[in-house]
């Protein structure tokens, strides 16, 4: 059985915070915790396909959302994932007031700095629960 922690970002396309969620998660699963974590396409989860459901149902998940709508967290819960931590990008962004993070297409240097911080938070949680 695949016991890797599933880390799922919202990847919201309208604001930079969606990109930050996406890039922070990808940094975590590709670089920081590749042996303990993996991501699952949120769009696939949204389809409600049986196979998509089987990927996360009953699994430990960490969600990362870029806006208060909390789409990643809600969709994972609806599909049966166990959300161990629902990370909000804005919580970290608040600690960097006045900085420019980039656009929904490309992160600036400050944006990259913040996603590194978020990735470390995700990795810490992964190490706690795995």
């Amino acid at each position, binding site marked *: 059985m695949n016991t890797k922690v599933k880390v799922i970002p919202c*990847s919201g*396309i309208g*604001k930079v915070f969606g990109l930050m969620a996406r890039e922070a998660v990808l940094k975590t699963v590709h670089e920081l915790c590749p042996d303990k974590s993996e991501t699952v*396409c*949120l769009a696939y989860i949204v389809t409600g396909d049986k196979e998509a459901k089987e990927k996360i149902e009953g699994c430990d998940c960490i969600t990362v959302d870029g*806006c208060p709508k*909390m*789409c990643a967290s*809600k969709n994972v819960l609806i599909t049966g994932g166990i959300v161990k931590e629902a990370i909000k990008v804005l919580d970290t962004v608040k600690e960097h007031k006045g900085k420019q993070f980039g656009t929904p297409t490309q992160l600036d240097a400050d944006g990259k700095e913040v996603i590194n911080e978020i990735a470390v938070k995700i990795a810490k949680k992964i190490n706690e629960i795995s």
Partner: protein
Amino acid sequence: MSELKVGLLSCSGEECLGGTISRLATRKVLEELKMVGTVTLCLPLYLAGGEEERNFAKVFPTISVDGCDKLCAKRSTEKYSGKISGSIDVSKIIGNENALNTKTVRNEDLEPEHFQMVDEVASAIVKAISCISPDSCSGKTFRGCSCGGE
């Protein structure tokens, strides 16, 4: 007064390169290749209760942009909002092997060849938009994606 609007709904899949290309091509059309008033719609909001997203796709023509042949964006849009006006399967443009590449997914890992793929997909989106009847682009005012984007 009616506005010209077309919705673009990208899968933005996180598991493979196709998702990244779908996202970047959608953004490119939105930012650089303005033809009519294009807006992006957040796919996850469809299931999380985004009535505004669902209603937009019912009223305005919407084009899905999917990174692989699972066609998640297309199927979800049709499930919640009815028939869509166009569908782009990125894997058919850049090839299945590229689309399903799970190693190169992050923006920072992209090479010039990947941005060439973005351009090709963006061109396909523009072509799909141009195939939509102008009459079907007129509708009520829409304020944009609920997550705050354009």
